[in-house]
């Protein structure tokens, strides 16, 4: 089962990613112990040089993260026929216990890497690298996560057994099964829809407010982060059924397929971009260093613009799909 080109490619990517980030993690430990900008010693200069390498590596990791996530979801979808009872990605991911954790670790890795890069960028703007310690503490989180991601992917693909009878998305997101997924699906539309749109509007309003007044930037970052699970819950609860025009079909993965007009890509890409930029904007707004007094708010405003635009596109796409649908719920 592991002998499949896409699986091999993902395993290669995750393994290399883990290797490079683990190296960076070891360096982070070293840096946190010995970093001393006042010193002109050889060690300090070597540390300073190496920070460029780590920045490049995390950048690569982020560049890789989103395509890897998309390929993983797409491949899970393509593998569904191998598993009796599986009809889309959910069935493949549920074929063993490692699938869902692998997906979640990839999601977390993507947003963490994005946050790290914003910090890295800010840090480079200040003349005294004011955020270097915080940045490398975050890297200590990112490196084990990359390792966990690689291990989970290996476990998932090595333990795939095509004969296993798995749940198809209908039974996972149907009322019969328990767990978080079923609870999200069970949210009544009357609650979920206002909740989602209220959250969306609030996030956008705070973002626009921040752009106009320069206040509540941190709140915007927090809201953008919270908006992400809310949006995913909304997709499962009512957006997906509206797109499928079937009240009992809640699957967030079937949206990625061609027969639904690739709606998933239209929704998820701006959502991911907006969330990552929003979290970054919050971080930039929270940066309190003298050397960043001018540049941090500028970076925060730039990221907020991206985030507001992307989240706006996401919400408008949702509205478009709801309006187009013939389903009445």
């Amino acid at each position, binding site marked *: 089962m592991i002998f499949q080109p896409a699986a091999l490619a993902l395993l*290669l990517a995750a393994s290399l990613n883990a290797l490079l980030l683990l190296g960076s993690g070891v360096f982070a430990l070293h840096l946190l112990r010995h970093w001393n900008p006042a010193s002109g010693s050889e060690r300090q200069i070597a540390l300073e040089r190496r920070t460029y390498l780590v920045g490049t590596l995390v950048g690569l990791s982020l560049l890789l993260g989103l395509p890897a996530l998309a390929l993983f979801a797409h491949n899970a979808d393509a593998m569904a026929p*191998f598993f009796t009872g599986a009809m889309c990605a959910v069935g493949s991911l549920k074929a063993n216990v490692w699938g869902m954790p692998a997906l979640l670790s990839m999601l977390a890795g993507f947003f963490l890497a994005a946050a790290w890069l914003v910090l890295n960028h800010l840090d480079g703007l200040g003349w005294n690298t004011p955020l270097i310690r915080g940045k490398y503490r975050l890297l200590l989180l990112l490196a084990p996560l990359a390792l966990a991601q690689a291990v989970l992917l290996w476990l998932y693909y090595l333990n795939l057994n*095509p004969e296993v009878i798995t749940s198809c998305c209908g039974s996972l997101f149907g009322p019969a099964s328990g767990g978080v997924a079923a609870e999200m699906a069970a949210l009544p539309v009357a609650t979920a829809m206002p909740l989602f749109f209220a959250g969306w509007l609030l996030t956008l309003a705070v973002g626009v407010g921040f752009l106009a007044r320069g206040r509540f930037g941190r709140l915007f970052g927090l809201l953008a982060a919270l908006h992400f699970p809310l949006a995913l819950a909304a997709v499962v609860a009512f957006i997906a059924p509206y797109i499928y025009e079937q009240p009992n079909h809640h699957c967030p993965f079937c949206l990625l397929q061609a027969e639904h007009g690739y709606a998933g890509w239209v929704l998820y890409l701006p959502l991911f971009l907006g969330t990552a930029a929003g979290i970054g904007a919050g971080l930039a707004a929270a940066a309190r260093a003298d050397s960043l007094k001018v540049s941090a708010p500028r970076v925060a405003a730039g990221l907020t613009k991206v985030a507001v635009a992307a989240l706006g596109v996401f919400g408008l796409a949702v509205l478009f799909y709801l309006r187009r649908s013939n389903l009445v719920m």
Partner: protein
Amino acid sequence: MVTMNTWIERQRALIDFSVANLGRRRGRNLGLFLAYTLLVFLLASVVLYGDALRREARLLLADAPELVVQRLAAGRHDLLPATWLEQVEGLRGVRGAEGRLWGYYFDPAVAANTTLLVPSASLSTSPPAPGQMVIGAALARARGLAVGDVLSLRGYDGKPYAFTLAGVLDADSELVSADLMQVNAADFRAFFGVDPGLYTDLVLRVANPREVRKVAEKVLQRLPGARVIAREEMRRTYEAAFNWRQGVLLTFLSTLMAAFALLAWDKASGLSAEERREIGILKAVGWETGDVLRMKLWEGALVSLCAFLAGYVLAWLHVFYADAPLFTAVLKGWSVLYPHFALAPRVDVAQIATLFFLTVLPFVAATVVPVWRAATLDPDEVMRE
């Protein structure tokens, strides 16, 4: 907006500079480019060809019957009595059942196994008339036959049976019909000595795909000595077989990938004195470490992109226009009579992403450290050398 524009301008200037840089060291970069293109070409050929075969198998199986029932005797496939057909015909959920007649015949003239088959009665084409035969295109090619020729085959009893060639099967279906000979039922039974009350196997049509498993269970209840094969299982098996072949080839090719990564690493870390001085001068005139790093990364990205495109296009031509002569034997897995068929060309984003991961990633991973090393050279030290 202003910062965005300056950023783009900056990257554009860096790209310009990188292109000029690559042009100046043409000989050195050409070797790397060729090796890179070859790697992409080989991997892309395997992936494209395997995917096209899988798609073909999927299309063929789309029309296959939902269930095939075979009789097992002492663990071996055996002929089954016509009474079995009556027993499963009435099952709820079965839309149609039919007995099939087919068998293998070793043709000494082409030294290959061929398949003799009685075409299904449910098809629109009528079976060949008595004494006549319709054969697959590959077989016709191999034996040099044309319509109207007489083909003499040795039957089960050692006597020769003469068949007149009434037609050659469409080349479109060659993946499955390459080695096929179609005759009518009476000729088939006479040729192989099969009694009138016997069939090779049964096929069942099930209208509702969700009932297939249930129908299979019921068939097994009524006919305990049967083996029931579902179409989905066949599809899964085909996919797994092609996946496996692709994967094995890719695994072998990964040694090549490692060798290429080594080459890239070597090329990137072995900077000439001239290049070192160049970086030193750039830094002396005000380039930052980050700028040099970005320029070097752009160089790598440009080489990767060009090699990837060239390799992919070559692989595309190799697979879809030249029938993939390098990998046919391994991936297709036919024995003697190779079907000759054109695969439908198709671009698949996931496939490109897969290839990109498999080829560009090792390159990037191998070059990132040497590139960083070059970018952090000390200008003072370098220019003093």
